[in-house]
């Protein structure tokens, strides 16, 4: 019974991690910019949805659409207004987006969004009992959405012209320019997509608990941990990283103690990176070395 629930909740946990880190990894993979504002965008989406649903009382679907569009625009705006000016200097990209993320998060803290009243409704209520493990529909939905996102990402980058162009841009900017792909256009697109993904993740995951400022930092940390673990630029690696971390967390919190959960990230990252600096499935380095 313990084993079974560990398996199931490990899967749920992995799916949650994946949703959280998808937007970040997408933006990084397609534009080469690590968007440290990811956590801020994620939380902003949560509060926006809360505002639309609870305060304005809009229908659920409409609220979701507005949230996704607004965060996508925000993502695009972050690129257009800020990152575009520091593009190409990795340190400044990181610092600039980091600053944006912190501003968003701390602004919410200052505005007083720190009480326990903020929560989002589940899309579907109810639960399902499989053998001896009870699972609510929201968590099942999370698994489904995570899967759909992976499929979407794959289809986008392999089947569409735009996705292909984005991939090309990430690999060799000047060559992309010389065949007529506008680099700023491509990066704006990837930031918008990353923002939209963050919003979807927020809408799926936040109903499981209350909305809290510190979640913003945590999401960023998780996104970083998972992408570094799996190897930046590799979607397969990302999924693998999520599964490893997801299960590791569930196992530590059931077998040892819940508050050790966080320590698992650090240990996992340190071990993986010490052994394999390019991450589990990071293959770019290998190609680079081939002179």
């Amino acid at each position, binding site marked *: 019974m313990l084993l079974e629930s560990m398996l199931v909740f490990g899967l749920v946990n992995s799916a949650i991690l994946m949703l959280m880190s998808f937007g970040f990894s997408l933006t990084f993979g397609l534009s080469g910019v690590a968007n440290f504002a990811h956590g801020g965008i994620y939380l902003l989406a949560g509060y926006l949805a809360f505002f639309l649903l609870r305060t304005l009382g809009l229908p659920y679907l409409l609220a979701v659409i507005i949230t996704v569009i607004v965060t996508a625009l925000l993502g695009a705006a972050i690129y257009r207004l800020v990152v575009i000016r520091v593009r190409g200097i990795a340190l400044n990209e990181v610092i600039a987006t980091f600053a944006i993320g912190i501003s968003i998060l701390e602004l919410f803290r200052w505005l007083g969004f720190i009480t326990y009243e903020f929560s989002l409704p589940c899309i579907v209520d109810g639960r399902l009992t499989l053998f001896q493990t009870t699972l609510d529909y929201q968590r099942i939905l999370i698994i489904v959405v995570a899967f759909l996102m992976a499929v979407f990402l794959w289809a986008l980058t392999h089947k569409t012209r735009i996705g292909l162009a984005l991939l090309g841009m990430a*690999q060799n900017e000047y060559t992309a320019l010389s*065949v007529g792909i506008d680099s700023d256009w491509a990066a704006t697109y990837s930031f918008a997509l990353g923002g939209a993904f963050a919003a979807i993740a927020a809408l799926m995951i936040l109903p499981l608990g209350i909305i809290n400022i510190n979640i913003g930092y945590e999401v960023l940390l998780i996104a970083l941990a998972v992408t570094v673990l799996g190897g930046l630029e590799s979607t397969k690696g990302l999924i693998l990283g999520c599964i490893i971390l997801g299960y590791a967390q569930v196992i530590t919190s059931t077998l040892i103690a819940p508050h050790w959960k966080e320590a698992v990230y650090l240990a996992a990252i340190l071990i993986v990176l010490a052994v394999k600096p390019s991450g589990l499935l990071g293959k770019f380095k290998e190609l680079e070395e081939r002179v």
Partner: protein
Amino acid sequence: MLDIKSLMVFYENALAVNNLNLDVRKGEIVGVFGSNSAGKTTLINTIAGLTLHLKWREQRKGGQRITIVGAQLFEDEDIGKLSPSERVKKGIVLCRERHPVFRDLAVEENLRLGGFLIKNQAKVKKSIDLVYSIFPPLTKLKTRKAGLCSGGEQEMIAIGMALVARPKLLLLDEPLLGLSPAMQAIVVQALKDIRKLEVTVLLTEQYARPIMPHIDRGFIIENGTLIMSGTQEELMDNPEVISAYFGM
């Protein structure tokens, strides 16, 4: 077709291209020769708009100042202020030096990206088939990642990509750089095929020798300054040119 008049390019205080005049007529293959850091790449990047892109970027960053002055006319139209992608739309396509490909994409995907600005997919398909007919070895490699191809194959992909974009004027930056003699021969052969497609070619090279028999006119630049220009025969007759760029 292309007319460059008194072009000057500065990187901060360093003069990369100095008061250069150059023209390319329709249907020609024109070579620009010069040693390393003579300004060839800057010249060709300026024509393709990459230097302008870099200038914009540096401006935004507040980094080094790039100054471009002079007239750049393409089919009697001023292209001096156009972005790289607008120039591609006009038919100026650049194939950069050192065979730059999208290393993590399959060969076929690379070629498809070459036709990024062409909306008509059937047309792109046709162009890709054309590339395969010019470079038969690529046919076998369609699904291989470009980064895993050999340098010669990558050069073929890079030129192929540029061809898929349907250029009127094809800019080739050092197409023979670092290639084995056998591979050089293939590229030179491809040049002949490309000429048949009524594509005008402007290319740069350090060692003129393998490519010399196939060009119509040549320009020789040194430290960013044009020191000599002429038809193929005129250049071949000049002993100085021969010793400096042909290694005889």
